[in-house]
């Protein structure tokens, strides 16, 4: 299958070294607008390193990261977020001391220019934005099926709920690109299936492009339009799910992991 | 003021700086040991030193026992306080944020500081604890006098610092301490009693503080507050060692001792030592310090 649509994210020839270890070697990847692209690979293949380069947690030693035609390799995380990138976390970095509702409201807040002064005196603008933030957060909680947990502290929610909240928090800014870091980690089969449904619903409702990093094959095969395979820091192959499923090298890479 | 006017004081001040530095190094080694093994920045370290030293003062200066008896009493009291702090108040807080444990040590600082003030008087002048006579000798080829007490201080401080290094390197307890500092969970898997090793590190570290306290009394104002704030000097030295390397910590101690002393050649302002300390803390935290080193490095 050829992919002709406009690309939203382009990662080209990225190399990352930690001391003497080359974690990523000349890795390239392209995500087209409207697609869900998967990045898979055995443990230690460099998936998280790759992911961190895209989000800006790590700066690659060489190579470029282009988002919507803008080279973002040197931009700090919060600037990339303003351009329309959002991410979720493998280890669920929720604001555990805030309620579910507040977790989403913070995400709305991040996009308002209002500073401490407006807050201190509760200016009309502050009140208006506060009300609107709450409305948006509640609407999103409803979409995520979390309405009845609005006032529960995020840290007290069950893991499946936390995953959904994390996803919701990333969606608040209406990002164009959503980066998902192992969203199925810690979920059982049934919860993973629910998550897959939710991801497809999210794409349709929010018309958002996604890059999904996971090694849960069931999830990746089910939701992705296009899959990249990373092994030992290098891109092994890429293709549609059906092609990847048949690919000898991929099977070997995964079997190799299973045997060892 | 002409800057060169007091330069002839430089050699004498070097001696004072080295002596002070030795004491800071010793206190800092205890601090790093406690931090590495238990993960607690012990702000009560100086207060422990102060309280132990006042017991030595009580035994030696007031009751008239020999200086070394007082020092031994101080060591015992220091170790006892270290054990009490760990056993009574740090252990029950297992799993709570590190900042909470820091605040607990502040509680101890206040308790010990006030208690010592109530027992021995908060601002009164106290006769220092003397381990040896005040006589001295001329350094060969110069007119610099080195007191026997100064010499003793440096030697004792270095001996104790070396003893800690030997303890950590060559004994089972030391190996266990290093293992716990590395990773408590792994240490537990090897069958090490993390609680016991942590308590031991608090006892050893606090005993070091006590020794440092006794040694420093002839050098600085001997009152409850001055000794309590020695903790911040120890922290400065420890930060230079990135809170992990003992040799660098000792070096940091000497560096701080000299850096605090030299400005006094040019300036008579009383707080210069603290200006220097503050600058060094700011420098180490702001520029040099990367809280990356995890291992307790003995060499």
């Amino acid at each position, binding site marked *: 299958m050829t992919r002709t649509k406009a690309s939203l994210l382009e990662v080209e020839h990225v190399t990352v070294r930690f001391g003497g270890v080359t974690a990523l070697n000349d890795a390239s990847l392209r995500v087209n607008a409207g697609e869900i692209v998967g990045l898979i690979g055995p443990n230690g293949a460099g998936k998280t390193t790759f992911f961190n380069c895209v989000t800006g947690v790590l700066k690659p030693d060489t190579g470029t990261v282009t988002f919507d035609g803008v080279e973002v390799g040197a931009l700090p995380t919060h600037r990339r977020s303003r351009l329309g990138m959002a991410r979720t976390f493998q280890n669920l970095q929720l604001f555990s001391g*805030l309620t579910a509702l507040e977790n989403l409201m913070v995400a709305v807040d991040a996009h308002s220019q209002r500073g*401490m002064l407006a807050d201190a005196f509760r200016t009309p603008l502050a009140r208006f934005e506060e009300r609107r933030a709450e409305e948006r957060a509640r609407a999103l909680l409803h979409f995520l099926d979390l309405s009845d947990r609005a006032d529960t502290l995020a840290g007290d929610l069950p893991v499946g709920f936390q995953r959904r909240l994390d996803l919701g928090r990333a969606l608040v800014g209406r990002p164009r690109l959503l980066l998902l870091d192992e969203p199925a980690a810690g979920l059982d089969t049934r919860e993973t299936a629910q998550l897959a449904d939710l991801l497809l619903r999210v794409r349709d409702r929010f018309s958002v492009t996604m890059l999904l990093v996971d090694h849960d094959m069931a999830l990746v095969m089910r939701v992705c339009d296009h899959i990249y395979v990373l092994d030992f820091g290098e891109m092994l192959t890429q293709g549609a799910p059906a092609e990847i499923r048949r690919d000898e090298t991929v099977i070997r890479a995964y079997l190799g992991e299973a045997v060892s | 003021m002409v800057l060169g006017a007091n330069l002839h004081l430089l050699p004498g001040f070097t001696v004072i700086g080295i002596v002070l530095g030795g004491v800071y190094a010793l206190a800092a080694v205890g601090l790093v040991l406690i931090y590495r093994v238990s993960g607690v920045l012990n702000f009560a370290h100086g207060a422990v030193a102060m309280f132990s030293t006042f017991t030595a003062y009580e035994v030696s200066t007031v009751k008239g026992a020999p200086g070394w008896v007082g020092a031994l009493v101080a060591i015992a009291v220091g170790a006892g306080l270290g054990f009490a702090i760990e056993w009574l108040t740090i252990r029950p807080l297992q799993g709570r944020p590190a*900042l909470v444990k820091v605040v607990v040590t502040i*509680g101890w600082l206040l308790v010990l500081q006030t208690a010592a003030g109530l027992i021995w008087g*908060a601002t009164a002048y106290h006769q220092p604890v003397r381990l040896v006579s005040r006589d001295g000798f001329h350094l060969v080829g110069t007119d610099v006098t080195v007191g026997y007490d100064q010499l003793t201080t440096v030697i004792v401080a270095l001996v104790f610092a070396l003893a800690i290094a030997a303890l950590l390197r060559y004994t089972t307890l030391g190996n266990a301490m290093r293992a716990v500092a590395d990773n408590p969970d792994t240490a537990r898997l090897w069958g090490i009693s993390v609680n016991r090793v942590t308590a031991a590190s608090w006892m050893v570290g606090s005993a070091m503080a006590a020794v440092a306290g006794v040694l420093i009394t002839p050098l600085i104002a001997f009152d409850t*507050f001055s000794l309590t704030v020695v903790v911040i000097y120890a922290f400065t030295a420890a930060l230079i060692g990135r809170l992990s390397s003992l040799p660098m910590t000792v070096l940091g101690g000497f560096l701080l001792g000299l850096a605090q002393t030299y400005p006094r050649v040019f300036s008579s302002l009383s707080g210069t030592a603290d*200006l220097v300390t503050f600058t060094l803390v700011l420098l180490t935290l702001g520029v040099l310090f990367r809280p990356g080193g995890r291992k307790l490095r003995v060499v």
Partner: protein
Amino acid sequence: MTTRARRLSLLVVALVAIVWPAMLSDFSRSLATDGLIFGLIVLSLVLLTGFVGQISFCQYSFAAVGAFTVGSLVAAHHWSFWLAMPLGVFGAALVGALVGIPALRLSGLFLTILTVAVALFFDRFVLASGTWNSFSGGLSSWVVGRPSFLGIHLDTSYRFYLFVLGVFSLCSLLVWNFRRGKTGRVLRAIRDAEIAASTLGINLTAWKLAAFATSAALAGLAGALLAVSIGSVSTGGYDLIHSLGVAAVATVMGVNSVASAAAGGLFLVFGPEILRHLGVSSQWFNLITGALLIGQLIVTPDGMVTDTQQKIRHLLQHRAAKRAASPAGRSGEVDLTERVPVRTGARS
């Protein structure tokens, strides 16, 4: 707590705070005034520790910046208090932001060392008599008179008390507004998960520095008021031990609640006073504070005031739940019971 119950209790507190001191002696009234001023310093810690999660042991150094700015400008240069005070607050905020800079790349644990170093630096260098005399021309203390406010001269102890009460209430309201608004949410979010906050587009640098500066500004304001309350500014009273004491009291009362500020401030002045009445040396106060601090951290981690508030809230909710007893709001429980076995199985 319901909004009505909260409003009612606030009204009662306000009435007591205004009327009761009118019946007290001048001495007790000035103690209460100082209590509210110390309360501002506790409030500055509610902001910094409660929201940002950063403990500071140098709040009195920030207060000193406020006090000495007011002292030098009013006493030595005959400025109006109303010009000197904002300058002092601004100066304290600036120093606070400077102290906060290393916080941008250091964990809070190591920053505590810096705050102690700052306190010691002020205590023994900036405010040491030698240094101080060299810039103040040898003045032992500056005399600061009571200013007028809206044409009313704050010369009686009751008027000045009311003025300080007003300032304290206003600042508490501001901090409470922070707490329930964007500021509180953003700062607590940064405290809980820095990387996630920055991914959302929150500028960590700006918010952290703003929090440090605002906290220091509150302490600076307290210093400026203290200068007026005492009537003079001299080098004693802004030392490390005071900073440690106020941090201890703030922690004991609970840094998560604005109400702790008033409780903490009053405790700081009336504690030693009560001891004196009992015939015990007021020196015991710090010992008691320290012991309370240790005990409280082990027994009630959130602090005494916060703990009491939660108990009251639970009691009220319990009663409200009994009265309503409607099963409608509980529909979510079904989903939960389905998940619980899976989760506990995986965890244990």
